[in-house]
């Protein structure tokens, strides 16, 4: 790449640019160096040219034990011995990343995003042992609309009925509605939502993850209620709460619906 010279006497020596490279990622599932060595050797033997002088990344995201000693000196030695060039590490705990840095490995961005931090391996283990009878869903947070089409943003006080198919989003604050919310309508807010008319549509508070957001309504007939991604559909709401004045909030990640 020839450096483009700007109008100056001395020619520019370099350009600074960003580019993307696809690198093989070795995602560690265990820390037994002997098993890693044996299995890696077998893999390399299958396609030695592929691995020779190839930059590789070590992925620690499968390591559930944050205190485990990865043994970077041995790992790096093993990889280099097989012809690879370990360039960086992804995932893992702070301590593990410090150890990686000590071996001159770069810490690379975590592009692999688990659904929610809470719904990681820990939560899955809890659910496996005690099946939760009451169907509370932990949904990935709906993405806040960037360039909303058909979504009204901003107005935080609605005084006319919200019709089926209309979506209202109160960005950065609370939403108050003093009219009916019809089936098929959607109310969304980063903060709390207050509905003084019949609530028959979907209502989503704490859209961006605010777990302290609450929903207050005078007449609960909603199709779906959600606070910070924890939701319940109409069928899962006890019949005695239908038509009542309630508040809906998160209590230690459990969605509660209490009469007011």
């Amino acid at each position, binding site marked *: 790449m020839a450096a483009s010279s700007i109008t100056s006497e001395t020619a520019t020596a370099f350009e600074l640019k960003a580019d993307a490279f696809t690198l093989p990622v070795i995602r560690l599932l265990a820390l037994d160096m002997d098993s890693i060595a044996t299995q890696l050797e077998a893999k390399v033997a299958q396609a030695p040219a592929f691995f020779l002088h190839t930059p590789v990344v070590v992925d620690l995201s499968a390591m559930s034990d944050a205190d485990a000693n990865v043994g970077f000196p041995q790992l790096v030695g093993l990889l280099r011995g097989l012809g690879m060039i370990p360039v960086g590490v992804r995932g893992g705990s702070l301590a593990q990343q410090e150890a990686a840095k000590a071996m001159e490995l770069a810490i690379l961005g975590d592009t692999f995003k688990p659904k929610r931090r809470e719904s990681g391996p820990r939560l899955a283990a809890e659910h496996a042992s005690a099946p939760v009878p009451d169907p509370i869903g932990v949904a990935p947070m709906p993405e806040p609309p960037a360039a909303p089409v*058909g979504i009204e943003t901003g107005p935080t006080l609605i005084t*006319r*009925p919200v*019709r*089926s*198919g*209309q979506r209202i989003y109160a960005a950065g604050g609370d939403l108050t509605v003093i009219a*009916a919310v*019809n*089936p*098929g*309508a959607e109310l969304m807010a980063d903060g709390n939502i207050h509905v003084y008319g*019949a609530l*028959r549509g979907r209502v989503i508070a704490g859209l961006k993850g605010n777990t302290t957001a609450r929903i207050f309504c005078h007449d609960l007939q909603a199709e779906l209620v959600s606070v910070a991604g924890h939701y319940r559909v109409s069928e899962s709401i006890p019949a005695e709460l239908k038509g009542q004045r309630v508040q809906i909030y998160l209590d230690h990640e459990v969605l509660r619906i209490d009469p007011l």
Partner: protein
Amino acid sequence: MARIIVITSGKGGVGKTTTAAAMAMGLAQRGHRTVVIDFDVGLRNLDLIMGCERRVVYDFVNVINGEANLNQALIRDKRCDNLYVLPASQTRDKDALTKEGVGKVLEDLGQGHDYVVCDSPAGIEHGATMAMYYADDAVVVTNPEVSSVRDSDRMLGILSSKSRRAESNAEPIREFLLLTRYSGERVERGEMLSVDDVQEILSLNLLGVIPESQAVLNASNAGVPVILDHDSEAGQAYGDMVARYLGDDVPMRFINSAKKGFFSRIFGG
């Protein structure tokens, strides 16, 4: 300038074309120069209901495309001098309707008429949005039945956001509810939604309640707008509806089941 009225619903088969024909005829009979336009390109029915299907030469799309002028396309009703019909094209599709094209035709019609009644197709797609875009008034035709109510509610949401008046922040479209195929007996038996049930969701000005009536089928078979059938309850109800639209305070008939007295049940009548 003419007042533009759109007859819309969202749901199909609830009585839009029947209503458009009846309302246009009712307005014309009261002396107002009226034109009724079929916006259902490709599935036209208005010409059948008005009884002018054998006189269609040019249509709405021909006018928009400049292939014919309005005078060539408008069909004058044989029963009422004040009433004209602008039929839809049966061979083209909805994309032939453009906002500018429709706007120009409505503007031209506005010069010579008092009311322009737009018969919208079902749905919320291009044909329906073109029919409602320039409206001043909207008659939302609804059956007292859950899916029709929900679709009407959806249509109301679209009216309040996708119309010319909404986009230019002008005074909003006047919305009216017309409940059709209503049966007082079934409501009393708890089988059918009542006016109040429907209004709980829609909360609109109630323009009228048209009872379920066999006269509607007879009228469309004959190509006669049902409002001309003065003996039928539906015809009379449409007459009341037009009067109410024009500002008369007419009490609602046909909401309660006609309770026949003991003697009339024995002696008939």
